[in-house]
């Protein structure tokens, strides 16, 4: 594989893996919490968590700039206190991909938690288990199949992320240029052969991921 493919492919995999990890931990935790509790504003929070799925990626990217940009609401403190700047960095691309893919793992994990028979958790409590033990020993293993499938979709979505990533991380070859942005770049430059090749690579990876998650969901019993 030529270096012009390997570098964006490696960057894409790195960004997608870290984004999946971040949205996985956050999404599963939120899903567990939202599946068990009802409170004022529950429906609103649920809608907010699903928002990245329906908002145009550019709008989402703009929100993120307002939030973590150099002069953003959070970004200025990140810069001043911690010396962290997310704009035009691959870490920024991770943030964009994580936010965009969060709804997929959140939705999948929440459905998996809600499908689990609540009496199993109740039985565990009567046997002396605390809430954390119920999560690790009952809820999580019971929901694992749904969560894994959700994580694979999250990964696929994070790999294909384009709009918000472009706005936050830009298009810096070798630094923030992921596969999907490299495709855009190649088409703009009239490099059709490169675009076709990159398209093939990203399609193959996504098909693999979807077949895998479909198989996981099918063998559910």
């Amino acid at each position, binding site marked *: 594989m030529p270096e012009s493919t390997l570098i964006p492919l490696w960057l894409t995999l790195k960004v997608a893996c870290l984004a999946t990890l971040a949205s996985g931990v956050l999404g599963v935790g939120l899903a567990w919490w939202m599946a068990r509790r009802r409170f004022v504003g529950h429906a609103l929070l649920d809608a907010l968590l699903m928002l990245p799925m329906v908002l145009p990626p550019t709008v989402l990217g703009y929100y993120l700039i307002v939030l973590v940009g150099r002069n953003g609401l959070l970004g200025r403190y990140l810069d001043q206190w911690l010396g962290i700047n997310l704009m035009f960095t691959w870490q920024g691309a991770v943030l964009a991909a994580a936010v965009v893919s969060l709804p997929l793992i959140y939705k999948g994990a929440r459905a998996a938690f809600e499908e689990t028979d609540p*009496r199993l958790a*109740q039985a565990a*409590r*009567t*046997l*002396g*288990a605390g809430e954390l033990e119920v999560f690790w*020993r009952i809820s999580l293993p019971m929901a694992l199949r749904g969560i894994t499938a959700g994580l694979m979709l999250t990964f696929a979505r994070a790999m294909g992320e384009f709009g918000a990533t472009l706005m936050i991380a830009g298009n810096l070859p070798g630094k923030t240029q992921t596969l999907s942005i490299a495709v855009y770049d190649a088409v703009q430059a009239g490099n059709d052969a490169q675009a076709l090749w990159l398209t093939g690579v990203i399609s193959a990876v996504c098909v693999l991921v979807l077949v895998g998650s479909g198989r996981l969901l099918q063998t559910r019993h």
Partner: protein
Amino acid sequence: MPTSPPAPALPPVLDIQLHLQAHAPGRHFSLGVAFSSPSLRTALLGPSGVGKSMTLQAVAGLIEAPGHVHVQGQVLQDSQRGLRLSARERGVGYVFQDYALFPHMTVRQNVAFGVRRPGQPRSPQAEDRVNEMLARFQLEELAQAWPRHLSGGQRQRVALARALAAQPRLLLLDEPLSALDTELRLRLRDELQSLLEQIRIPVLLVTHDPQDVAQLAQTVIRLRPGEAARPEHVAERPAAARLA
């Protein structure tokens, strides 16, 4: 085997008063349940929908219901005094109607669940306890089996072993025989009867079947729809009057 009522100075085995409430869209359910029982084996009898299972859940601390729950003088809950143990602190064994075995754990892991908390060191006593329960319920050969491969009767034994392994101070049985077909029910009722007569802890069981009451309980509390908000009377039924 005649039952002897406890000496007057002793507190009743069960002293329960609960105000159950449930909200569903278009339906509001509110019911007071109050009874005390002098016997180790008490049955709540009534048709479905009178709050029998809810009573059990409230006694186990799985749902919130104001009132008090006293078991052999020990206070599990007393709303007036602001006392309420959580389900995990109550030490109440609960056998669910469909047994609610953990499907991702083997029979042995199910039985061991309440014996040792994660993080605690492995102790020979805990292992012994699990082995003892497996032996007592004839589950040794099924120790490595998964719940989905068990018959109804085997599942019930696992559920009982799991609940009793945790050494509860009270055992709750929710329709213990209703998940079984008729023939098996007759046999398992006999088994359950001899088990309940062996264990020395209070048992509260819920059923809609008078035959269960006759064979398994010493005291019956009848819950009836309509007159549910009032304290329920307790009818003592000596074991000699069992329906054969």
